[in-house]
């Protein structure tokens, strides 16, 4: 295994609404087995030892499922590898001497909190606007009462796999949250459990999405290409259809 010496060009910003800018850092002797975040750990330990403030970035599970890590690496959310979060991106995909530009997700509804950390609570609010089935604890019928075909169930799963990282927003030239919103709408619209609130859900969630200030979808499909879970834009189509039906049928 080789070692890498890299130049990192990283967006630094001390806090919300503070001015920000790029700073260059050199990190040497990196192992190609490292994950991208472990490479940043090395940089941060180096910074702590120089008594400067480490780069703040969101991360938690480091196995690609919590959706916390969020950075645009050389122009691509989560970096160059398809279907991968930043924590699962490994340094063997980089070359010695590379300069890597690392930026936060950029969207008006995602203000930068510090360095590479942004505020993604708008996504929570979209779910709160209807991304659930109103079923109180204890009132559920037996799980096998309603058979659901394997096909429908798999389709719903594909939509439900969303990890809420916001890469779709980051990738979209319009900073649209359509894929995120559509995935939850579709999951519940596909399943029989979601039927009772199907109409209110799609109306509520689309409205909230607009209210948060995300851009609109122009079907560039960049979101699907950058989604770590490969969630299909088919669900955006479905959201549009659901939304038309809900409004037109009244």
């Amino acid at each position, binding site marked *: 295994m080789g070692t890498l010496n890299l130049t990192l*060009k990283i*967006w630094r910003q001390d806090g919300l609404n503070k001015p920000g800018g*790029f700073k260059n850092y050199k990190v040497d002797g990196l192992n190609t087995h490292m994950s991208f975040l472990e490479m940043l750990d090395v940089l941060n330990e180096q910074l702590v030892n120089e008594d400067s403030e480490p780069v703040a970035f969101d991360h938690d599970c480091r196995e690609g499922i919590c959706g916390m890590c969020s950075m*645009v690496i*050389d*122009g*691509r959310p989560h970096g*160059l590898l398809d279907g991968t979060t930043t924590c699962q991106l490994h340094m063997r995909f980089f070359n010695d001497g590379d300069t890597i*530009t690392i*930026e936060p997700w*950029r*969207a*008006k*509804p995602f203000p930068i909190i510090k360095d590479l950390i942004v505020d993604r609570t708008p996504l929570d609010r979209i779910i709160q606007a209807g991304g659930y089935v109103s079923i109180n604890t204890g009132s559920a019928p037996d799980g096998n009462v309603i058979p659901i075909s394997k096909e429908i169930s798999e389709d719903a799963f594909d939509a439900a796999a969303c990890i809420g990282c916001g890469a779709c927003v980051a*990738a979209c*030239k*319009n*900073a*649209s949250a359509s894929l995120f919103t559509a995935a939850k709408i579709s999951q519940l619209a596909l399943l029989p459990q979601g039927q009772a609130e199907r109409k209110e859900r799609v*109306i509520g969630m*689309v*409205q909230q*999405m*607009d209210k948060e*200030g*995300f*851009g*609109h*979808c*122009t*079907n*560039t*499909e*960049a979101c699907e*290409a*950058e989604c770590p879970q490969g969630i299909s*834009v*088919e669900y*955006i*189509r*479905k*959201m*549009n*259809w*659901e*939304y*038309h039906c809900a*409004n037109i049928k*009244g």
Partner: protein
Amino acid sequence: MNSYFYSSVFRKTLATLSGFFLIVFLFGHLAGNLQLVLLSGDVAQKQFNEYALFMTSNPAVKILSYLTYASILLHAALTLFLAIQSKKARPIDYEVSAGSANSSWASRNMPMLGILVMLFILIHMKSFWYEMHFGTIGNDPWGHKDLYTMTVVAFQKWWYTAFYVISMVILGFHLRHGVESGFQTLGLKTRKYIGPIQTISQTIAILIPAAFAIIPIILHLQS
């Protein structure tokens, strides 16, 4: 119900519907134009000029033409508005952007393509529509305004022909993304029909501009 009309999804839908109407218009327009090259000599001149007269005087056509103007304006205004909204949704751009890694060139440049198509429409209308309605244009042997000769003369200039051909390429790219995207916005591009829809969209995107472009080329070569 009210919120529907203010939603981004509805605005996109209107943009789609107006766009689709304009495609229908393009087919009609194309059928008229083909008379320039499918026939020849006097027959072409007579028939085309009669057609032109019909198009400028028939009340039903009038209504359709106003619908077309409205569609163009609506399509342009809505998409421009949405493009500005989207720009606002990302106030600071990325330092490095790798759009080509995740999306097609046409899809990322629809506003620019749209503006170019709009410019073309304006120039095109000045050259023919304006001249036909308000310009000084001679009569043909049958007593009709001689749009035919005016057109044939116009495309004797190579640069004018080139301008038309390039404009059609731009229109092609615009349609290349626009048509398929429209089906998606309407919610019709289902998994089951994704194949036929892609074929139809691509055919439209190639066929219309190509057929339009071939007319000035033929006229130029005949001159």
